[in-house]
């Protein structure tokens, strides 16, 4: 796959109480962000297991993006803090495996952070674009994202 044809596929786990609402707000505010993310709504980022991240990479995701509530603002008190530790654990494991740890990132946004979430997503997609396709992404050019109709 040529670099200029590469459209990263980024899996985004978004907390129902903040980032998912922020993504919704971004839509309502007509803020543009790259269509490379596939958002999965989670009840809380504390629901995320390290297993979810590694399965995503094993199945060819170019990047995994976790967006939880601001620290201190978790609906369930501390789920986002657990998610932060699990993300860090998996980032270390990615390095052990030989994948770049930058392919996995966690950010904190509030439900009012439509602009901020869009910025984070844009930055994540551009980071992954620079890293190039995941060596585990075997779909090649056919995987190029269709533009939203």
């Amino acid at each position: 796959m040529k670099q200029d044809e590469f459209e990263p596929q980024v899996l985004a786990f978004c907390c129902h109480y903040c980032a998912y609402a922020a993504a919704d707000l971004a839509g309502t505010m007509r803020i543009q962000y790259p269509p490379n993310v596939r958002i999965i709504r989670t009840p809380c980022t504390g629901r995320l297991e390290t297993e979810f991240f590694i399965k995503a990479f094993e199945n060819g995701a170019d990047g995994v993006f976790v967006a939880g509530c601001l620290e201190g603002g978790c609906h369930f008190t501390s789920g986002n803090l657990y998610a932060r530790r699990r993300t860090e654990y998996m980032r270390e494991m990615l390095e052990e495996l030989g994948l770049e740890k930058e392919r996995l990132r966690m950010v904190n946004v509030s439900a009012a952070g439509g602009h901020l979430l869009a910025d984070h997503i844009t930055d994540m997609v551009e980071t992954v674009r620079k890293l190039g396709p995941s060596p585990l992404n075997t779909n090649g050019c056919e995987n190029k994202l269709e533009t939203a109709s």
Partner: protein
Amino acid sequence: MIVAERKRIPELLNIVRAHKKVLVLGCGTCVTVCLAGGEREVSIISSALRIASRLQGVDLTVEELTIERQCDNVFIEQAAEAVERNDAVLSLGCGAGVQAIAERYHNKPVYAGLDTTFIGILEEQGIWTEKCAACGACVLHEYGGVCPVTRCAKRMLNGPCGGSREDRCEVRPELPCAWQLIYTRLKEIGQVDRLRRVTPPKNWRRSLDGGQRLIVRQDHRI
């Protein structure tokens, strides 16, 4: 319970890279509780091995299975078909589990995926501490239930050593002084007089001496 830690993925890949098909075999008992070798860790380590092998161009197929106990033949039998299908077994059991699997399936290479570390307890979420060294001659009754063999850095039976600072061990200041714990505990239970007794040297022949230790109960033999 037995506490273990996973080996790093590059080391695991090196261990199994000579084989094409590997069974990652978990254990549902101690190593599940210490989050090192249960069903979830089997899933994570298997995925990690698949990813690492693909990145390094190693031809490797990984199958996953977790049995209830790797140190018990009744459960080991449940892995027979999966072991047969694969070229080697990467056991995520403790050292006893690895050896039990190897003894049962004598024509298959069986490798250890974990470093078995100690007998201990879950102190709090995510923290395990060593409590017992399995020395074979327990002295806990003499020391208020605090083990000087395991918890004193100098293994002193007639302590304290005099080097502790503010209740902390002088060898590893992040740890409490075991002899401070012993004194406090004996005082709480009204047995501080025990410390007046001089304990003779411990019989270490019941520990790691003379090879594998064995317990025979004739009353339970059939």
